[in-house]
């Protein structure tokens, strides 16, 4: 046996570590249900944290290795590492945010955490796939878990409605995606992204309707997952009906996963024909930003408002994707990372509002909260100004990098102008939150804040990330660039 072979095996095992850890974690959680839980324990949360921590650790062990596993279907490259770490961070923050929330809303069951883990697993598989079939596999794993999580408050009608809507529309989108994959396979004879790209580079098939329709359908499938206009209709209802902790989780995770897969497909498979899809992406980016922001102006429910805001943010990321090239893709990756932190932070704040099973998530419920709960107020304000793209927060650096990347293409100048004007519009509704926090007195009984140490920790972590990446974004930007440049 040569000296190289065992090393290869070890790297492969470590690279698959996240998948193994999360699968084991989910199985352990399901088995744990057989043993009656203790009154005040939270073993589900602990097991999830351990599994997520273990997968982050495993991928860090081989962070600098590059491997193609399972015949090229699954790759371990800097982008996989970046997104695996991001999904683990999202998972950890979500578990912390859920910790007390699921207890007080009485949905504290091991299944909740098991589904969360398998959903994170699906996201990682999506980001690490180099083959359309594995991408679909990851997407379905993530989506099916999310459908159930959205409907987790079984006793509430709106939760059921949200889950059903999300499921039905999501099933359609999956159908589109699968059909698109089939057509692309028909056009190029392969489902592997690299080979597809090579094929397209040497024999452009632009007149082939199979390729065009296939690419369009695949794109629609991803657009649904990232909530891009015109596939955004499910977002507000699903976000509103889902338990708040789940809303935060899916708004960050599902979006990042969808974009990770989209970026891989865009850069590897359809890169050679990029000039053809840029105009389409630009128009969709414009519509997504504008529709999201304008509709968010009219919302009084914070969850709905953040749902529309998440649509708008998908639009900003699409600007970066439309800008294309390594720099645009890196800007998209950077933006997804900072967006995850600020958005999860905002939703974690929302999980604290209300007592027992009820949720208080109207803008007016925040009235006067900023002075009664200074830390919560400051955190929410920082998340809002970061979402609005105002310095010195991470959201601002994200916007700089996204628009800086897009401005390199003169034909996208209009999109950049539209983007920055959109961010002014968005500031109006983000400011409404701060107005409520600091400038209004509560009418009637002020909202009850259910403090929990875990959620407070999640808020502090998200706050630290939002501020840190705002003033010192060099490291994250370098990582984002490396993740794109080292793409396998």
């Amino acid at each position, binding site marked *: 046996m040569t000296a190289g072979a065992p090393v290869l095996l070890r790297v492969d095992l470590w690279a698959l570590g996240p998948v193994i850890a999360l699968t084991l974690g989910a199985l352990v959680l399901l088995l744990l249900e057989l043993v009656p839980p203790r009154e005040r324990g939270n073993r589900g949360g602990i097991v999830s944290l351990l599994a997520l921590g273990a997968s982050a650790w495993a991928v860090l062990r081989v962070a600098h290795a590059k491997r193609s596993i399972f015949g090229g279907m699954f790759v371990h490259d800097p982008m996989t590492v970046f997104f695996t770490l991001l999904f683990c961070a999202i998972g950890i923050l979500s578990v912390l945010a859920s910790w007390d929330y699921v207890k007080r809303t009485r949905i504290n069951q091991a299944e909740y955490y098991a589904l969360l883990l398998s959903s994170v697993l699906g996201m990682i598989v999506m980001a690490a796939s180099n083959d359309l079939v594995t991408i679909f596999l990851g997407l379905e794993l993530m989506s099916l878990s999310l459908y159930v999580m959205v409907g987790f408050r079984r006793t509430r009608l709106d939760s059921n409605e949200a889950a059903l809507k999300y499921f039905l529309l999501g099933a359609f989108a999956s159908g589109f995606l699968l059909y698109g994959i089939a057509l692309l396979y028909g056009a190029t004879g392969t489902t592997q992204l690299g080979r597809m790209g090579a094929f397209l580079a040497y024999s452009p098939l632009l007149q082939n309707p199979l390729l065009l329709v296939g690419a369009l359908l695949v794109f629609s499938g991803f657009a649904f997952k990232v909530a891009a206009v015109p596939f955004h209709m499910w977002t507000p209802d699903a976000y509103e009906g889902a338990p708040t902790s789940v809303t935060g989780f899916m708004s960050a995770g599902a979006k990042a996963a969808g974009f990770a897969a989209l970026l891989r497909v865009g850069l590897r498979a359809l890169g050679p024909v990029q000039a053809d899809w840029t105009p389409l992406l630009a128009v969709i980016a414009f519509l997504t930003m504008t529709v999201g922001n304008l509709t968010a102006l009219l919302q009084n429910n914070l969850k709905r408002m953040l749902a529309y805001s998440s649509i708008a943010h998908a639009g900003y990321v699409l600007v970066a994707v439309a800008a294309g090239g390594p720099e645009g893709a890196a800007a998209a990756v950077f933006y997804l990372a900072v967006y995850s932190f600020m958005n999860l932070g905002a939703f974690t704040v929302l999980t604290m509002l209300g007592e027992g099973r009820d949720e208080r998530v109207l803008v007016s419920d925040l009235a006067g909260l900023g002075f009664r709960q200074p830390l919560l107020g400051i955190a929410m304000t920082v998340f809002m100004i970061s979402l609005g793209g105002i310095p010195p927060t991470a959201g601002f650096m994200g916007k*700089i990098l996204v628009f800086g990347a897009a401005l390199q293409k003169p034909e996208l100048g209009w999109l950049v102008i539209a983007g920055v004007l959109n961010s*002014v519009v968005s500031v109006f509704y983000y400011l409404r939150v701060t107005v409520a926090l600091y400038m209004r007195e509560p009418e009637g009984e002020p909202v009850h804040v259910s403090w929990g140490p875990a959620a407070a920790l999640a808020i502090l972590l998200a706050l630290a990330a939002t501020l840190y990446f705002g003033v010192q974004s*060099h490291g994250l930007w370098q990582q984002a660039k490396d993740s794109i440049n080292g793409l396998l």
Partner: protein
Amino acid sequence: MAHAPWLSILVFFPLAAAAVVAMMPTGSPRTARLVATGAALIELLVSLPLWWRLAPRAPGFQFEESLNWIPAIGARYHLGVDGVSALLALLTTITTFVALLGAWTAVEKRAREFYALVLALEAGMLGTFFSLDLLLFYMFWEAMLIPMYLLIGVWGGQRRVYAAVKFFLYTMAGSVLMLVAILSLWLTQRAATGTPTFDLTVFYQMPLSPSHQFWLFLAFAVAFAIKVPMFPLHTWLPDAHVEAPTAGSVILAAVLLKMGTYGFVRFAMPLFPNALQVCGPWIAGIALVGIVYGALVAMVQPDLKKLVAYSSVSHMGFAMLGLMALNAQGMAGSMMTMLNHGVSTGALFLLVGVVYERRHTRLIADFGGLWKVVPVYSAIFLVVMLSSIGLPGTNGFVGEFLVILGAFRHQIPWAVIAATGVVLSACYMLWMFQRVVFGPVTHDENRGLTDLSLREKLVFAPLLVLIFWMGVAPQPILDRVQPALDRTLAITETRAAQLEHFREPVPAGARLAARAAGEGAR
């Protein structure tokens, strides 16, 4: 001190103090205000050496600090001052201290948050003046909005939320386009040299095609014009001024408006000289409209704060006009006007705040005959009012005289129209003063007014000293700003001359193709 990062200390000391004040126990507003005022005083004392340690004739920027910040995109933490920014920074530290001292009794509820925000605002303002890196500048420029927005929105008057949101959105709408322009500069520079940077001194050397300049200048100019504010982008100002608490109004008038004119001097004019030649007359025209319009509208205001707010529009028109004259006198006059306006209008807002605190009204009609009741107050009011009009011997005169002189040398009609603004300012100010201070006491509530307390006298003392000193002996100030302004003017002129003959760089490939086409034709 020689190697200490002095400017950084100036920027971050108030921020640290703000954090300390914000974390103090709720029950002690007295301690909070003592600590905050003390911090502002220390900051003022630490900033005073800017006056004598500055070497006005030294080329370039001084006390520079330059550290890598985001190397991947070439952004640096680059601070530095010249005569212009040093004096504006001094104005900032003086104003902040005076405003805090003046707010001692005005702010009752949520005092510690108030003081913390004022200190944070000070940090933002100083950072904006010191930044020599465009990204850093933009960060301070926009981050500064947040404390001001909260100051207006939380401690303001009846329509405070409306005014605060309007203030924020107006300023932000202007500045995002400037952000695009900054990014465009950055990309142009990177494409030309391969190394990305946001450094202002590098951009001063960078050639730009006139058409490119035009759009970038427009983006910068709109952002700064909103801040100045220039007619017709001024409508946020009366709302913000009227609704803001006294300290907020003082800082807004004295410092925040200067950021607009400062932006023109530091960025828009030297970076885009050819566009300036095209747009300059238009901007001067708008400034003239602003001078006359602001004065006329001020005349009919029933509310004291609104009157002062519109007088700001008029005065800042002078500052803009002086810049657009593009000669030494005009620029120096503009700089003097900025400083004068900071001192006089700041003092006016404080004076309005004093009577508002006692009577809870700002309507001119609610006063009358104050001289008999509160003589000291009225005397100070008289001096400040006269300095705002620009009476010789007070600071206002020097600035306006130089601006009109500069304008006269450039375009005589400009000077004529601007001079009517001076006359109009005498009209509205004197008329207001007559209705408020002279005549019989028309309202019985006013008979019980108490005159200035010792603290309030202390608040006005430095401002009065400044008014007379800057009016009688402005030369030390001019000595400090003139070299910096001359440098700006020189950069503008040499760049404009160089770029007259600017041609788009032709990519090598295109040149080859053109040659091949030419050979083919032959």
